[in-house]
């Protein structure tokens, strides 16, 4: 077996890795259920949702270099679009293959709406304004229940239709032979497929003319404009594409959870998604995926800290849930100070960020 591997060419090794990865991803929920229990499979579903969200924000922040602190608003828009059109709230029950693209489009539209006034703004101002937009959308979602009840206010929208393809209801448990496949499994495979789509689109965008234009704007907007790039349109495109991924994830979330409320779309979520990108590796798809996995699993893992303290010390000294955000904040600072390119950066980005160091080093040595 080992000699087989060593005899393979680089390309064959790459394919083997890919197939191995695919196989692992397909059996992962079964492994997890065996080892940890079914609720962890549900966590896997959330991991995939966050992977999609992080990849969406990656387009705005990682590719185009536009710091967006209100990204969760697009998630909310997608979720509410699905919720309002597939629940008893308005009595509409549109199928998911209309609603998911619709959610993405509506979110993309909001992305353009948010992007348009901010085109002239520099990084710092842009961050604050996007933060403001995120909050505005959340406040409106929370309050549009009077005089006309559009969003049902803080009570949220419940009893959302589960996702159904024809007769296959994702919320039902199915049995194939002796294997029980619960709803969490169904959604896992659906989300896996969607996430794969998002990854694919992200990869193609990165290597396309648009991706290169984004990189140019990120580096030096003036120079980019000088080379003939329409910075306005390219920036708007970044916002729109990032937002549409957020909207897609939002729609999936609504169908999956069956209930949406403005509580789930706070500023902390936006910051969390930003953390995922920053920690994982801004602009690099595997890095972003890693960041999303780590930060979604972390709160659950931190709970064990409480159990461990209980077993070791007899009572809980520090609540693990209290530590969660502290850990995020500290890691943000540390990462920015010592490894700004993230845990799993693209080679290019690492070169960019440490270019100054190398220059100084070579000056000192010469």
């Amino acid at each position, binding site marked *: 077996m080992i000699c087989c591997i060593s005899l393979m060419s680089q390309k064959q090794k790459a394919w083997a890795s890919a197939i191995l990865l695919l196989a692992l991803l397909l059996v992962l929920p079964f492994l997890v259920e065996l080892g940890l229990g079914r609720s962890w499979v549900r966590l896997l579903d959330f991991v995939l949702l966050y992977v999609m969200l992080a990849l969406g924000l990656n387009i705005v922040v990682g590719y185009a*270099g536009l710091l967006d602190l209100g990204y969760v608003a697009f998630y909310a828009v997608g979720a509410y679009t699905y919720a309002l059109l597939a629940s008893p709230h308005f009595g509409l029950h549109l199928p998911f293959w209309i609603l998911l693209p619709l959610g993405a489009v509506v979110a993309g539209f909001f992305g353009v709406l948010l992007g348009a006034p901010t085109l002239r703004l520099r990084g710092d101002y842009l961050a604050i304004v996007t933060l403001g937009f995120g909050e505005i959308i959340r406040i409106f979602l929370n309050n549009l229940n009077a*005089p006309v009840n559009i969003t049902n206010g803080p009570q949220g929208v419940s009893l959302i239709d589960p996702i159904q393809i024809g007769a296959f209801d994702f919320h039902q448990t199915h049995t194939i032979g002796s294997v029980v496949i619960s709803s969490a499994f169904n959604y896992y495979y659906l989300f896996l497929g969607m996430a794969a789509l998002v990854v694919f689109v992200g990869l193609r965008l990165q290597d396309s003319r648009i991706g290169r234009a984004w990189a140019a704007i990120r580096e030096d907007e003036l120079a980019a404009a000088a080379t003939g790039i329409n910075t306005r349109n390219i920036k708007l495109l970044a916002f729109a594409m990032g937002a549409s991924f957020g909207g897609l994830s939002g729609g999936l979330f609504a169908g999956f959870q069956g209930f949406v409320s403005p509580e789930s779309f706070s500023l902390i979520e936006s910051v969390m998604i930003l953390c995922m990108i920053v920690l994982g590796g801004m602009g690099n798809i595997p890095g972003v995926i890693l960041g999303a996995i780590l930060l979604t699993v972390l709160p659950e893992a931190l709970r064990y800290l409480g159990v461990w303290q209980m077993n070791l010390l007899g009572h809980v000294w*520090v609540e693990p849930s209290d530590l969660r955000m502290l850990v995020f904040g500290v890691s943000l600072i540390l990462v920015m100070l010592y490894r700004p390119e993230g845990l799993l950066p693209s080679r290019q980005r690492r070169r960019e960020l440490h270019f100054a160091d190398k220059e100084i080093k070579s000056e000192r040595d010469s």
Partner: protein
Amino acid sequence: MDIFLQQIINGLVLGSIYALIALGYTMVYGILQLINFAHGEVTMMGAMIALAVIHALVEMQTGLPGSLILLTGMSVAILGCMALGFTIERIAYRPLRNAPRLAPLITAIGVSIVLQNVAMLIWGRQYIAFPPILPSGRHAFFGATLTDLQIFIFLLSCLVMTGLVWLTQKTRLGRAMRATAEAPQIASLMGVNVNQVIGLTFIIGSALAAVAGVMDAAYYGIAHYYMGFNLGLKAFSAAVLGGIGNLKGAMLGGLLLGLLESVGAGYIGDLTGGFLGSNYQDVFAFFVLILVLVFRPNGLLGQQVVERP
């Protein structure tokens, strides 16, 4: 009419608190072109530290008059925040002075989160009440009610702001600060220790924030580990409204925003026929911010912000 006057009074008091915090933002931005996200949390720390001291003093039953207890609490808070501001600058911002724009911004967010959670770990999540040690006299004023505390806050803010203007206009340090804000390299050629000036800017800004935080806690009678976020955001909007980098602009912006929020929240229901109500109060600050940045990015008293490469 008396209701309108009351809203004006409310707005001015709220605005003076905003103004004090906005000054910190604007000073740091003027010199470093950096939005110090953590500034709101420094304000919160000032309030929490002061409250801790005040509670301790009250519990010890020292018999000291309320105003003295308040002063002690405020002094300790000011010292604490000065140290905090200096430390943040040294640890989180100085190493990143030459890094790409995104880095110090993200670090600032990280510092803000850390401060919030440290406060939560130290003082817990519940709201902390301000002990009833201050004079609570209420006076009728042309139909509106004015409390002693309101007058005190307004006067104190004016005093502090006057002091700051004097500092920047009439002292050597102030000249050095203005020079560094305009052109740091030339200033350092002229013998100004730029690092020291930056450190002092943070220290002064944090001291102002501490005063604002204590005043806020005293006025509303309550302090909370999360109070810095909204305050910081609104104060920043105020700074932008007045013209970021401009001290007088920050003061004007703060007062204006306070007035806008008070009067707006009070009358929006009537103005829009019940469609929008006071539930959109928080949205005002954001709308103001966005409008200003889109139509008049230099703010009301704005100077031309130099486009730094």
